[in-house]
C-alpha cells in the first residue's frame, strides 16, 4: 500500500480509472432511466389506445357492455383485460389482475402457466362504477433494460481491468524511462562525472528532461574542469615567481636592489592571485545581480581618454572611433577592465611607434568593441591560444604580464553573453569583443 501511494504511475492510473468509471456510470444510469421512461410511455400510449378502442365501442358505459365488447373483440392478443365491480371484485376478463387504481401502474402478475410476469396496467372507471383494466406484458421492458445494462457493466469491468493493467504498465514504463536518469545520477554520485543520460533522437518529454540533465552535467563538468585547470595552472605558474622570489630573498643583504626586487616579486604574485580570483569570480556566474544600464560609449570614451596620455608616454599612437549613445546592461567595472586589458595588451606587446585603435560600433543585434594595432601581429596558429589562461607567446616571454589579461577579457565577454575573437589586422592584431545589444 505504501508503494501504491508513493507511485506516481499508480496515482495517475487510479485517478484516470475513477474518472472513467464515473463517466461510464453516469452514462449507463442516464441511458437506463431514459430508456425506461420512453418504453413505459410508449406502452402507456398503446394501453390508452386500447382502452379508447374498447370504450368507444357500443354500450361502453356499463360493465356488461364492456364485458361483451371485450369478448367480441379480442384485439390483437397483446393485451389482457379485466373488469372489476365497484366493490373491487373481478367480474370478468381474461387476465387475473389485482384490483387496480385508476390510471397507470406496474404490477407483477402470475400468468396461466404460473410464472411471474411484469405487467403494465391501465385502468379507467366506467359510468356505472366498474373499472376496466387493460394489461400489457411489460417484461420485455425489463429485457431491454437488461440489454442496456449489460454492455455498460461489461465496459465498466473491462475498464477496471484495463486500468489496473495500464497502471502496472505505466509504472514499469515510467520506471524504465527514469532509470537511465537515476542511474546517471547514481554514477555521478559515485564519482563518474563522465556519465550521461542516453537520449533518443526523436525526443519525447523524457528525452527533453534527459537532455536538460546532460546540459547541466556538461556545465558542471566544465566548471570542474575549469577548477582543475586553475588549480594546476596555479600550482605550475606560481612556482616560477616563487622560485625567483626565493632566489632574490637569498641575495638580500648581499646584492644592491635585492630588497626592492623581492617586494616587486611579491607584488607580482599578489597581482597574479588577484587576476586568478577575478577570472574565477567572473566565470563563476551570478554576476547578473550587479548588472545595470551603462552608457558604454561614454565609458569607452573615458577609458580611451585615460589611456591616451600613457600610450603617448610609451611612444604609441592612440586613436579611437566610438559610436555615440550605445548602452548596455552589464557590470561597469568589468567592462572598463575589459577595455583596459585590451589596451594594456596592445601597449605591452607592440613596439614603440605602433598605432593603437579602439573602436566601438553597433550592428543589428550586437555591439562590436575592438582594439587593433599595426604592430608585428601574431601568427595564425598562435592567435586562438592568446585567450587561454597563462598563455604567453614566445615573443612576449620577456614582457611584463601573467598571461591572464585576455583570459579575463574572454571571461567578462562571456559573462555578458558575448564572445571574443582574435583576428589579423594586417599586419597587426585585432581583438574583437562581440556583445549582445540590450534593449532596443
Amino acid at each position, binding site marked *: 500500500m505504501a508503494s501504491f501511494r508513493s507511485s506516481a504511475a499508480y496515482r495517475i492510473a487510479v485517478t484516470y480509472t475513477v474518472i472513467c468509471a464515473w463517466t461510464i456510470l453516469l452514462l449507463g444510469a442516464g441511458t437506463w432511466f431514459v430508456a425506461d421512461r420512453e418504453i413505459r410511455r410508449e406502452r402507456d400510449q398503446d394501453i390508452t389506445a386500447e382502452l379508447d378502442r374498447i370504450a368507444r365501442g357500443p354500450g361502453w358505459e356499463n360493465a356488461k357492455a364492456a364485458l361483451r365488447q371485450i369478448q367480441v373483440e379480442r384485439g390483437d392478443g397483446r393485451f389482457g383485460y379485466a373488469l372489476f365491480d365497484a366493490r373491487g371484485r373481478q367480474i370478468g376478463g381474461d387476465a387475473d389482475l389485482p384490483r387496480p387504481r385508476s390510471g397507470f401502474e406496474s404490477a407483477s402478475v402470475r400468468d396461466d402457466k404460473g410464472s411471474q410476469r411484469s405487467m403494465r396496467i391501465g385502468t379507467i372507471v366506467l359510468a356505472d362504477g366498474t373499472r376496466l383494466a387493460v394489461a400489457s406484458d411489460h417484461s420485455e421492458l425489463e429485457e431491454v433494460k437488461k440489454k442496456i445494462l449489460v454492455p455498460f457493466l461489461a465496459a465498466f469491468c473491462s475498464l477496471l481491468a484495463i486500468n489496473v493493467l495500464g497502471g502496472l504498465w505505466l509504472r514499469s514504463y515510467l520506471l524504465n524511462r527514469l532509470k537511465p536518469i537515476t542511474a546517471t545520477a547514481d554514477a555521478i554520485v559515485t564519482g563518474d562525472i563522465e556519465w550521461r543520460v542516453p537520449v533518443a533522437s526523436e525526443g519525447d518529454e523524457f528525452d527533453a528532461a534527459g537532455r536538460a540533465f546532460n546540459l547541466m552535467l556538461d556545465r558542471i563538468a566544465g566548471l570542474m574542469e575549469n577548477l582543475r585547470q586553475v588549480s594546476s595552472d596555479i600550482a605550475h605558474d606560481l612556482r616560477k615567481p616563487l622560485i625567483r622570489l626565493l632566489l632574490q630573498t637569498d641575495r638580500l643583504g648581499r646584492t644592491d636592489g635585492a630588497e626592492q626586487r623581492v*617586494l616587486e616579486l611579491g607584488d607580482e604574485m*599578489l*597581482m597574479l592571485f*588577484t587576476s586568478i*580570483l*577575478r577570472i574565477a*569570480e567572473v566565470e563563476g556566474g551570478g*554576476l547578473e*545581480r*550587479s548588472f545595470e544600464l551603462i552608457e558604454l560609449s561614454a565609458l569607452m570614451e*573615458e577609458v580611451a*581618454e*585615460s*589611456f591616451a*596620455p*600613457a*600610450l*603617448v*608616454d*610609451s611612444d604609441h599612437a592612440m586613436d579611437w572611433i566610438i559610436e555615440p549613445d550605445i548602452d548596455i546592461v552589464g*557590470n*561597469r*567595472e*568589468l567592462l*572598463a*577592465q575589459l577595455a*583596459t*586589458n585590451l*589596451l*594594456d595588451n596592445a*601597449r*605591452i606587446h607592440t613596439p614603440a611607434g605602433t598605432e593603437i585603435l579602439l573602436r566601438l560600433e553597433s550592428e543589428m543585434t550586437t555591439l562590436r568593441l575592438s582594439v587593433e594595432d599595426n604592430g608585428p601581429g601574431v601568427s595564425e596558429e598562435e592567435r586562438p591560444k592568446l585567450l587561454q589562461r597563462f598563455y604567453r607567446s614566445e615573443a612576449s616571454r620577456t614582457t*611584463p*604580464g601573467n598571461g591572464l*589579461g585576455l583570459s579575463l577579457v574572454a571571461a567578462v565577454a562571456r559573462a555578458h553573453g558575448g564572445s571574443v575573437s582574435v583576428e589579423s589586422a594586417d599586419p597587426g592584431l585585432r581583438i574583437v569583443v562581440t556583445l549582445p545589444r540590450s534593449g532596443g
Partner: protein
Amino acid sequence: MRILLAEDDDETAGHLESGLSELGHAVVRATDGEAALELGISERFDVIVLDRMMPKREGLDVLRRLRAVGVGTPILLLTAKGGIGDRVDGLDAGADDYVVKPFAFSELVARMNALIRRAPSSDTATRIEVGDIVLDLLRRTVTRASRPIALQPREFTLLEVLMRNAGKVVTRTMFLEQVWGFHFDPQTNIVESHLSRLRAKLREGFLDDPIETLRGLGYRMRSDG
C-alpha cells in the same frame, strides 16, 4: 590618534600595531567581533580598522551595529574578499573605505589619514585653497597665484583629490578609485601619465612643484604650497 584595530590574525595585527605605534598612534586591539563591538561602543576612537572575518561576530555585523547605535567614527574595512559584490556590501553597511587584503602598510596608513581628514565641511566647500593654488569646484577652474591653469576634466579631479588630502599621501589605488572609479589596477600607468601632465601644467612659469612623488608610496600635495 587613537585607533581601534579589530583583527583576529595575530601576525597581521602585530605588524599593524607596531607600524602604527611607530607613527605615534595609540592602538587598541580587539581579537574578535564581540570585543570590537563593545570597545567601539564604549570608547572613543579616531578611526576603527575592522576585519571582515572575525570569530564570534562578523565584521559587517559589527559595522552595522556600530552604525545603528550612532557611532560615527570613520571605519575602514579590511577584507580578504575582493569580489565585486563584497565591496558594495561593505560600503552599504556603512564603511567609509575598504582595503582588500593583502595590502601594503603604506596604503592602509594613507587611507586612514584620508578618512580622518575628511571633515564634513570640506565636502561641501565650493573652493579649495592649498598654498597659492585655488580650485573652484563650481566653475571648475584652477588658478595658481591668480594665474588660470587650463586642465582636462580628469586632471582637475586628480588635483581635487590631492588638494582635499593636502599634506597627506594619496596612493595610486586611491587615485584609481576616486578619479576613475576603477577597483582594479591597469598595467598601463594612467595615473602617472595624468599626474605628470597635471604637474607640468601647474609648474609652468613657476619654480617649484607643489606635488611630491614619494617613491613606493604615492603622491602628496605640499600643504604649504
